[in-house]
């Protein structure tokens, strides 16, 4: 089943055309890794998938629903699309528990007990049960990012988007976050991951998208894309990062 369908996606900021013409399809349970040089548009691409960026042209279908159609309730659609940010963006005035329970309580009408039960399960999953009462300011970067993942999962999303989730972390924290993401991938979550972690992309990616200059230059299974890149730009990029 197709979870995400991107058709001729275009995005401009004023005169600057960042995404020129992108089309791809993400099937259920697929893990797609998006790589490319900085400024190539990969974060913008990801942010168009839940319309955090207004889309300038083309269509994006999430589980069959066109999110560019103003008739469709974007807030409802976003409940099914979790997102994890490079800068974590935890709510600093709320405890870890409140961060995780806020959306399910306000949007799904869960009562406090049910929301906290669910939150404890998720915090167990990311290994942070004992931090439930802590505030984000008391956590390390890696812990913050794992809470952010738990927060996104609390809405039972069908899709998870990751925007360079390990780029702002100290090197020793990266592993913990990647482990959580690997667990998630093995459980069958549909994931789109913008990343600089080529190891993760090679190990967990069902497909890798190489984006450059506002186009999807090349997409393939990791073994092919990393082992046998077809385009010059892909080769040039990989020779720098591998």
């Amino acid at each position: 089943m197709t979870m995400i369908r991107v058709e001729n996606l275009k995005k401009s900021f004023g005169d600057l055309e960042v995404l020129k013409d992108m089309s791809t399809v993400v099937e259920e349970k697929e893990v797609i890794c998006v790589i490319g040089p900085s400024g190539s548009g990969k974060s913008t691409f990801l942010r168009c998938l839940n319309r955090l960026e207004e889309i300038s042209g083309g269509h994006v279908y999430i589980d069959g629903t066109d999110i560019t159609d103003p008739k469709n309730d974007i807030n409802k659609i976003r409940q099914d699309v979790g997102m994890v940010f490079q800068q974590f963006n935890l709510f600093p005035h709320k405890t870890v528990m409140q961060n995780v329970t806020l959306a399910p309580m306000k949007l799904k009408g869960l009562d406090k007990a049910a929301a906290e039960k669910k939150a404890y399960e998720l915090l167990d999953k990311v290994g942070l049960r004992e931090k439930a009462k802590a505030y984000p300011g008391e956590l390390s970067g890696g812990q913050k990012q794992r809470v952010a993942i738990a927060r996104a999962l609390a809405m039972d999303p069908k899709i998870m988007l990751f925007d360079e989730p390990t780029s702002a972390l100290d090197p020793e924290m990266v592993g913990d976050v990647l482990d959580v993401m690997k667990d998630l991938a093995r459980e069958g979550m549909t994931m789109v991951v913008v990343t600089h972690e080529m190891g993760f992309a090679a190990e967990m990616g069902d497909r890798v998208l190489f984006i450059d200059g506002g186009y999807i230059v090349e997409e393939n299974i990791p073994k092919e894309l990393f082992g046998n890149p077809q385009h010059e730009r892909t080769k040039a990029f990989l020779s720098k990062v591998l």
Partner: protein
Amino acid sequence: MRAAFFLKGDVRMDNIINALPYLMEGLQVTLYIFVIAIIIGFIIGLIVALFRLSPFKILNWIAKIFVDAIRGTPFIVQLFFIYFGLNSLDFFSMSNTTAGIVTVAINAGAYFSEIIRAGIQSIDKGQTEAARSLGLNSTQNMRYIILPQAFRRMLPTITNQAIISLKDTSLLSVIGVADLTQEGKIQASQTFDAFNIYLILGVIYFIVIYLLSMLANFIERKFVLR
């Protein structure tokens, strides 16, 4: 010469003690006006700030004109306009206390709105993105995520404006509101002891404002240190 100065400017406790009951009555009026005006002013400030930040151009303009008009005119002129100006219209009538509350509320509202707007804009846009990506709509985002954080940040500036507004209420004595300053004026003229009455008047204002800032400090310590 020195002796004469002291004779006129001596601290006369009896005058102060005799005046105190009247001053306390005036203080009650001042606090009553202040509390009501500051609450209304805060609500005005919040609405105007949201107008200012709304995507609708017309609301931006209304907010901007309102803030510019209030900031660009003296308090006393606003007071005279609302009390004498509006009351001169046939269909309009309000007491001097009401006019005072309205003026202080509108005046504080304009300044509050700028404080609130700046507070909202100071919150990292990643907060909004995280909230919206979870499915919260823009109202829920404001209510649960942005405003609680913004208010913690704004509290010192809000306190500052509240203190200024409290002091502004003393100008209401000009239109005859029986506030603390007005009672002081009456006592000073009745006792012929302006030195002592205005001294104690200042002390009372100082104590009230000092208590107000202590209260704000307490709230700040309790909620802001996150």
